[in-house]
C-alpha cells in the first residue's frame, strides 16, 4: 500500500517497496529550550534552520509541532508552515494535540499534508478524523485510547481496527492512514521493544497499512541512545515500519536507515549510502 503526501511541488511516496521515508522530528519545542524560547519571541529563523538541516540530512517529510506553554498555537502553526515553505518544498506533517491547530494548519497548507495525530480516544475520533477527511489529508493514528496506552499486541490491534473503521466511514481511504503502534521505553519495561515489533508485524499482516513510530521513546533512560534507536529502527523496518519519525541529523540513525535500505535492495549501487557517508566524512575525499 502506498501513501502519497505532497507539497505544491513535491510528492513523497511512502510504502514497503520504497526506501524508508524519514519524517524529521526536530521541529518540536517540547524538551528543546532554545527552540521554545525563539518561538515564544515569534522568531522563526531557528525553525527554518532546523528545517533545512533535516532536509540536508535526508528528511523527506518534516514534522511541525509548535506547542509552547501559553502561546496561540493556531496562529503560530500558520506562521511556521509559511516560514518552512519559504525555505524548502518537502511535504509537512502537521503535529498538534489540539484539533483546532490541525485545522488551522491544514487551511493554509498547499498540497496533501500528513496530520499527527488521531488515536482511538472518543474525542480524537470525533474531532480529528473529520478534519482529515475535509482536507483530504493523510493521518497518523496512534494505537491508544481512553483507557491508555496498551502494552499488549491484541489491544493495539483492536484500537487500530476501530480507527480504520471510523476513518472509512468518513471516506478516508485506507492508504491515507498511517498507524503508529507506539514504542514504549525499554528502560521502564524490558519487553517494550519486543511488544512494539510484534505489533508492527501484526498490523502489517492484518491491515497492510504504512506505519510510523516515534523511535526516540525506546531509548529513554538508556546510554548510547542513538545506537539503541538505530537497532530498533532496523528491526522495526523488517516488521513493517515504513516512515519513522526520527532525527536524521544524527548520523548514527541516518546511517542505520541508509544501510537498512541498502540491505533490502532499495539503494541502487549503494549510491545513497556512499553519498551520505561522504557528506559525513568530507576530509577523506
Amino acid at each position, binding site marked *: 500500500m502506498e501513501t502519497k503526501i505532497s507539497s505544491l511541488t513535491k510528492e513523497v511516496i511512502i510504502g514497503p517497496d520504497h526506501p524508508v521515508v524519514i519524517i524529521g522530528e526536530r521541529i518540536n519545542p517540547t524538551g528543546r529550550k532554545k527552540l521554545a524560547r525563539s518561538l515564544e519571541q515569534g522568531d522563526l529563523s531557528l525553525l527554518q534552520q532546523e528545517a533545512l538541516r533535516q532536509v540536508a540530512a535526508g528528511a523527506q517529510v518534516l514534522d511541525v509541532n509548535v506547542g*509552547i506553554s501559553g502561546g496561540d498555537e493556531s496562529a503560530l502553526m500558520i506562521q511556521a508552515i509559511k516560514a518552512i515553505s519559504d525555505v524548502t518544498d518537502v511535504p509537512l506533517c502537521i503535529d498538534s494535540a489540539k484539533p483546532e491547530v490541525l485545522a488551522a494548519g491544514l487551511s493554509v497548507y498547499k498540497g496533501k499534508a500528513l496530520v499527527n495525530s488521531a488515536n482511538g480516544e472518543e474525542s480524537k475520533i470525533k474531532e480529528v478524523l473529520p478534519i482529515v477527511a475535509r482536507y483530504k489529508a493523510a493521518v497518523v493514528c496512534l494505537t491508544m485510547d481512553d483507557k491508555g496506552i496498551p502494552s499488549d499486541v491484541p489491544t493495539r490491534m483492536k484500537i487500530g481496527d476501530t480507527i480504520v473503521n471510523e476513518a472509512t466511514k468518513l471516506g478516508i481511504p485506507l492508504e491515507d492512514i498511517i498507524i503508529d503502534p507506539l514504542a*514504549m521505553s525499554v528502560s521502564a519495561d524490558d519487553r517494550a521493544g519486543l511488544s512494539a515489533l510484534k505489533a508492527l508485524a501484526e498490523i502489517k499482516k492484518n491491515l497492510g497499512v504504512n506505519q510510523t513510530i516515534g523511535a526516540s521513546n525506546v531509548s529513554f533512560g538508556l546510554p548510547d541512545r542513538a545506537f539503541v534507536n538505530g537497532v530498533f529502527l532496523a528491526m522495526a523496518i523488517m516488521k513493517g515500519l515504513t516512515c519513522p519519525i526520527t532525527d536524521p541529523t544524527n548520523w548514527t540513525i541516518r546511517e542505520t536507515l541508509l544501510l537498512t535500505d541498502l540491505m533490502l535492495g532499495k539503494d541502487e549501487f549503494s549510491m545513497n549510502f556512499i553519498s551520505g557517508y561522504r557528506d559525513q566524512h568530507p576530509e577523506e575525499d
Partner: protein
Amino acid sequence: MSDLEAIKQAVIKGKRKDIAGLVQVAIDAGADPQEIINGYMIEAMKEVGARFEAKKIFVPEMMIAARTMQSGVDVIKPLIAAGDEIKKIGTVVMGTVFGDLHDIGKNLVVLLLESSGFEVINIGENVTSEDFVEKARELKADVVGMSSLLTTGDPHLKSTIEAFKKSDLNGKVKLVCGGAAVTKKFAVDECGADGYATDAVDAVRVMKQLLEIAA
C-alpha cells in the same frame, strides 16, 4: 564490610536476590529494623539518585535499586511492632493531569519518593482537578505532584492549581509540577505552584525542601 554496609551496597548495586538474606543476617545480629531502612537503605537510594543525576547510572539501574530496597523492606515490615509503623517523612499524592496518559516519568518519581521515605499514593493518569483535590483531602497529603507531558496539559495544570487554591486545602498542601511540557515559569510564576522539578531526583529534593526536611 559490616552487615549494614552490605545492605547499603546491595541496594546501590541492585542485588535483588541477595537483599532478603542480608537483611535477615543483620536482624539476627540485633540490628534495629527502622535503622536499617532510615540509616542504610534510604542512604543507599540517595547515593543512587546522585549517581543518576551525574549520569553515571541509567534509569533501569535506578529502578532495580528501588525494587531491591522494596524487597528488603518486605522482610522488615512484619518485624516492626504493631502500632509502630515504618516512619514516613510525608505523604505525597501523585498523578498525571487530565487529558494526558503518560506514566513512565510519573512512576519513576513515585518509585524514588517511596525509596526516600515518603508515603506515596499514585492516583494514575488522566486525573481531573476535582479528583486531585478530593484525593489530597482524603489521604491528608502534604504534597501533591502533578505530571504533564503534553502542551495541551497547561490549562489542566492551571485549573488543578486553581482548584486547590479555592479549596479548604489552600496553603495546607504543597503543589509541585513536572514533566516535559512544563516550565518553571509557567507552573510557579504563572499558575502559582509551590515548586517545579526537572526530574525524579529533583522532585525528591524539591518536596523535601518544601516540607523543610533535611536532604
